[in-house]
């Protein structure tokens, strides 16, 4: 016998690898479980990618409030291929979030959470939470001004939890303020605590797949009955099941490999998110924005009426998780086919549309003053009208331009004033400036009469 084979045989005999892996590979899966079933394994591949690239990054990263930013600059600009490594870790995180989302949608639409797979759904919800937790803490570890201010914003949100809010906020920051104690905590969560939980729950999630089998593709009219389902499933597998390896595994492998390659390509082409300014909490000239996967929440809080947001910040997530956890208990039998469950489809579409549109409005952040609007260049005022001319200068100086646009220059918070003179009379304009409005400061006390006249004269030319 050739020595290689001999060695393999010895190894297998003393270690029992085949014994261990064979049931995993041979376990039968329902026929027809095709491309819809690849998102879960793709999530797992992304997770493995994150662990591997994370270890790579940890070789170069300094987890201290003082040095983290410098070490990130080192990784990005000096370390060989450091930039690519950061890019892969970033797009890997994005990929993991997208795959988790798709996996969850697929599970919901095909009602795969019904008997006997309730626990798969519940552990999946926990895994979703942990994944978002990784995304959030990971963004902080970039430890530039965005990271620092994200920590503050998160602490503020925790602060809205009744009674224990303030304590939780302190725990998150590691004290009264940001400082030497903050980053080490986030590092510990991101690198040890949450990954450990992810391993545990992923293991459990996979064990459940082995124990209960993957759900068969739903057929309209084929109802789940907890009294007979397990027996029926067993018979179905015996009659028409196919071994997982390689008849189902090839799709998982192929799709996973495409995803990983896409992540690498994105990382090389676009690179990691740019580092902004150093993590100096006393630097106030900064515009914090979360990474894209949390951008929709940021948008939500900007658009929500301020009166209710404290309650939404607290009860919203609570209600959401309650609903998610409750789902398999509310309906765990009966129809699984999406064709017979139109509301599941409507609901899923609704959630997807809401989140995607919030992402878009979050990206534009039209509710934020446009601090880059420095001077009006595209307005022409008759040079003879000196009042209007100085008014146009005031329009910028008094920060009107940060929130209002004229000829597409300026901010989008307030109404566009390009043609304001067509809508409002001189008197109405004056009153509005002096008294303000629901979402506009009253300028009455900070403008002299003279300045007010000039501003109005300028706005009167806008017709």
């Amino acid at each position, binding site marked *: 016998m050739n020595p290689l084979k001999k060695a393999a045989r010895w190894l297998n005999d003393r270690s029992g690898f085949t014994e261990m892996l064979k049931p995993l590979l041979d376990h039968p899966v329902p026929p027809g479980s095709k491309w819809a079933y690849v998102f879960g394994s793709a999530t797992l591949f992304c997770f493995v990618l994150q662990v591997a690239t994370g270890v790579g990054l940890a070789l170069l990263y300094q987890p201290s409030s003082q040095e983290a930013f410098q070490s990130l600059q080192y990784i990005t600009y000096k370390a060989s291929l450091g930039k690519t490594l950061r890019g892969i870790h970033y797009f890997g995180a994005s990929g993991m979030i997208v795959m988790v989302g798709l996996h969850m949608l697929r599970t919901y639409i095909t009602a795969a959470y019904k008997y006997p797979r309730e626990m798969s759904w519940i552990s999946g919800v926990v895994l979703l939470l942990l994944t978002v937790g990784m995304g959030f803490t990971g963004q902080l570890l970039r430890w530039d001004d965005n990271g620092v201010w994200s920590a503050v914003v998160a602490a503020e949100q925790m602060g809205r939890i009744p009674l224990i809010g303030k304590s939780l906020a302190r725990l998150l920051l590691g004290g009264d303020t940001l400082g030497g104690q903050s980053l080490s905590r986030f590092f510990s969560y991101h690198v040890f605590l949450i990954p450990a939980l992810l391993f545990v729950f992923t293991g459990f999630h996979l064990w459940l797949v082995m124990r209960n089998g993957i759900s068969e593709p739903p057929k309209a009219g084929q109802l789940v009955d907890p009294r007979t389902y397990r027996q029926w499933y067993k018979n179905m597998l015996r009659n028409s099941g196919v071994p997982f390896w390689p008849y189902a595994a090839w799709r998982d492998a192929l799709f996973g490999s495409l995803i990983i390659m896409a992540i690498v390509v994105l990382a090389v082409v676009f690179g990691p998110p740019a580092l902004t300014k150093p993590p100096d909490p006393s630097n106030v000239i900064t515009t914090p924005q979360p990474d894209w996967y949390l951008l929709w929440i940021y948008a939500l809080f900007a658009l929500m009426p301020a009166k209710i947001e404290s309650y939404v910040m607290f009860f919203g997530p609570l209600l959401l998780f309650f609903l998610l956890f409750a789902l398999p208990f509310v309906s765990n039998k009966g129809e699984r086919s999406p064709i017979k469950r139109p509301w599941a489809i409507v609901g899923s579409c609704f959630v997807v549309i809401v989140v995607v549109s919030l992402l878009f409005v979050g990206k534009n952040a039209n509710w934020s003053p446009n601090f880059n609007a420095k001077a009006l260049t595209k307005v022409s005022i008759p040079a003879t009208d000196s009042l209007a001319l100085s008014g146009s200068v005031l329009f910028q100086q008094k920060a009107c331009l*940060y929130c209002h646009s004229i000829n597409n220059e300026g901010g989008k918070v307030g109404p566009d004033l390009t043609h304001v003179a067509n809508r409002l009379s001189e008197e109405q304009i004056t009153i509005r400036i002096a008294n303000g409005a629901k979402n506009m400061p009253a300028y009455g006390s900070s403008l002299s009469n003279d300045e007010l006249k000039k501003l109005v004269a300028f706005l009167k030319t806008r017709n």
Partner: protein
Amino acid sequence: MNEQTNLDRRKFLVRLTLLAGAVPAVLVSVPIFSALLGPLLQRQKQAWRRVASLSDIAVGETKLIQYVNADPLPWAGVTAKAAAWLRRETEDRFVAFSTHCSHLGCPVRWEDKAQLFLCPCHGGVYYKDGSVAAGPPPKPLTKIDVRINKNDVEIRTAPVPITTITQ
């Protein structure tokens, strides 16, 4: 051995084993949780910091002042810094505002010509006295203690203000 003593022995051994595991687990957990909950167990003492001379800031002026927070750790680096907006109202009256927006804590900036504080995150606006002028902030900018000490202006370090559900 009869059936009953055998059962008793089994019960005893189960309990003993569980206890043998639980006692060290609890013992070891105490310092771990103390590290985790440290920020709650140790209160930081706030300190007065000199931030300007009287002559640095004119009446009616609002300025960003930067200082070191209450209890900086040796490895805090720039994160030990904190800031506030200091405003001289009259010859001998100063007010200081936290730089944190009362909405979700983003850094508000002072626009001197417009005499407004603007928040970059969700468009909150405050007047020069810290009261809300527009946008989502639920309450005015948080005030920070200021005092005049001979020719110096001093302010007291303060925690990041956290808005609670009832505010």
